[in-house]
């Protein structure tokens, strides 16, 4: 499993686009928002938590279809399926690799982009915490969606349609943590719910993803 993780990370680094594209997309969305809503600092402060979360979510969505598609096309996935690695483990590791190459950089970049949106001072630690806790769930849910659509020719668009509704709870609790953090309200409940989604997702979704992969490999 560690070998698979290292291979996926190495592939992502060498392919180049992996990190860069998601981050650049995140940056561009954040830059575009003030053009749409106007430069008023108070307005930006108010919508910053939600915009940051939505933009991070969309940036993570961009690279989802690559989680399994490349390995499916060149036959690696069929070879992995007949290897001693359980497909559940493969799905888990692939989601983890996706998080390290997209979710983690997004989390680290978010505070910088928070300045652009005039995010309130007390919200910064909670922005970091909520993204660090929530983006793994985005990757795991996305890996499940990617497993469902891996055999399809026009899977990319369908993948977004399937995954975005599944992202609703994560988005709600994630943005709520930041909003409450900004207003100095207690954040324990949404933070716990966010952690619950991530832990539950990583515990259960690999099984669903592996089941979908087996069907698609038939």
């Amino acid at each position: 499993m560690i070998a698979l993780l290292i291979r996926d990370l190495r592939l992502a680094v060498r392919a180049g686009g992996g990190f860069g594209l998601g981050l650049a997309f995140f940056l561009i969305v954040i830059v575009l928002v003030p053009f749409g809503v106007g430069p008023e600092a108070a307005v930006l402060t108010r919508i910053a938590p939600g915009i940051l979360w939505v933009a991070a979510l969309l940036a993570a969505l961009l690279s989802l279809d690559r989680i399994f598609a490349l390995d499916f096309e060149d036959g690696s996935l069929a070879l992995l399926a007949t290897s001693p690695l359980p497909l559940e483990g493969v799905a888990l590791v692939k989601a983890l690799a996706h998080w390290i190459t997209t979710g983690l950089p997004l989390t680290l970049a978010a505070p910088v982009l928070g300045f652009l949106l005039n995010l309130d001072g007390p919200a910064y630690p909670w922005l970091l915490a909520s993204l660090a806790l929530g983006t793994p769930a985005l990757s795991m849910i996305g890996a499940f969606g990617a497993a469902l659509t891996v055999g399809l020719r026009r899977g990319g668009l369908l993948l977004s349609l399937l995954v975005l509704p599944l992202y609703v709870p994560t988005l709600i609790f994630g943005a709520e943590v930041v909003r409450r953090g900004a207003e100095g309200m207690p954040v324990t409940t949404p933070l716990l719910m966010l952690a619950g989604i991530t832990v539950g997702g990583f515990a259960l979704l690999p099984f669903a993803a592996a089941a979908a992969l087996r069907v698609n490999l038939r």
Partner: protein
Amino acid sequence: MSIWEYANPKKFMGWTAPLVPWLFGLAGACLIVGLVWGFFLTPDDYKQGSTVKIIYLHVPSALMAINAWFMMLIASLIWLVRRHHVSALAAKAAAPVGVVMTLIALFTGAVWGQPMWGTWWAWDPRLTSFLILFLFYLGYIALWAAIEDPDTAADLTSVLCIVGSVFAVLSRYAVNFWNQGLHQGASLSMDKADHVANVFYIPLLVCIAGFVLLFIALVLLRTRTEIRVRRMSALIARTRPTEVTT
């Protein structure tokens, strides 16, 4: 004879054939009686005025929007565990019915709330939940449409339905949490039925019965169509090789 025998496609076609027209007739009768009674013969609510008449459409369609998904979940589980083809096709057949029910619930809900909120769309937790349910239905139907092999499609949509159910429940709680306090007391939906007077309650029950019967009739009819489509493609697939060799 085991109950599962009825799930054999041939048997299913046999025993549902005489049932469908009766169900449609009964559903139509219930709906006409319930809706006419509700629309013409019930008084206006002293507070909500004539908007209370929307309850005869909103509550039954909202109920069926959720129950249709629930039925799809059960059918998906049966398909995954016992691999009865009719079960998978019934889930496929129910989805568009569920979509229409969700649309009706959304529209009537928004229209009902309009005079109260002063706007056509309010992010009321209940309404928002139905909007999310609508998105789940869309994804489910799109996945069915995108996969060519019928068994693969049945397997994958079943997995999606199960995972989707968990997330739909989660979304319901998330949405409640997200919009707590903003529309307190303004939410209007099923629990309303508990404390409405009998004048409203009896026609409402007739309407609910009508919607349930209509749902069953539609699902049976559409499942029969799906079985025929499957049989058609199976016949075509099996005859093609002989045509090539002869």
